[in-house]
């Protein structure tokens, strides 16, 4: 029972954070939302009994990729240009 509840919460969080990545206009906020998405995805891998993949996802996705995104955003500017 507790596994079903944890599964439901994590998948709902994945969908919400993925929608936030697309919706945010502020690029720093989108990068942080991507880090949250990677963290929830690594929790999901751990629940699905793949701890190896979970460690790789937490290290690469939540740590390194977010840092590289933030470095790139600081170089090119923070706000997304709106094309009408």
């Amino acid at each position, binding site marked *: 029972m507790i596994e079903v509840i944890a599964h439901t919460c994590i998948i709902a969080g994945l969908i919400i954070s993925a929608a936030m990545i697309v919706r945010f206009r502020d690029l720093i906020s989108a990068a942080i939302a991507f880090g949250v998405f990677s963290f929830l995805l690594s929790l999901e891998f751990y629940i699905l009994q793949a701890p190896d993949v979970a460690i*790789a996802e937490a*290290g690469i996705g939540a740590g*390194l990729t977010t840092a*590289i995104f933030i470095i790139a955003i600081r170089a*090119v500017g923070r706000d997304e240009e709106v094309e009408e």
Partner: protein
Amino acid sequence: MNMSRIVRTVADISFPFILIYGFYIVVHGHLTPGGGFQGGAVIATGIVLLVAAHGHEAVARQITGNLLKNAETFGLLLFIITALIAILLGQGFFTNWLANTGMLFGTPVAFGPGPGDLNTAGVIPIMNIAVGIEVLGALSIILYYMLSGAQEAR
């Protein structure tokens, strides 16, 4: 690009623990989940934390790009030489020539379930350590080149 004193202190305190955890994942690669790639990625994340807190120039004075390049080359050389020694001993490429010999990492595995012995599995721990050193150097050098490109663009 300097963060506040709180961020710098927290990064300094938590960096050794991240380092120890990464080396734990690398060394226990043949016993527990994880291995060379995952442990190296964790250590590289610790270096990223230092760079984010102190700025690129201050960290690059201590951990230079040449050091990371040499770490990457050393890891690859250790991996391929460990595989090539098996040919010199008259066995096939990548043969586990250290297992069950009683030398380094050569203890025979005890029968049945158990907590696991670190001193087993032959060349597999050595190759895990080699991959760990290589991934640590490679991921950090990618980050350093990203930073230098970002500074040129500004």
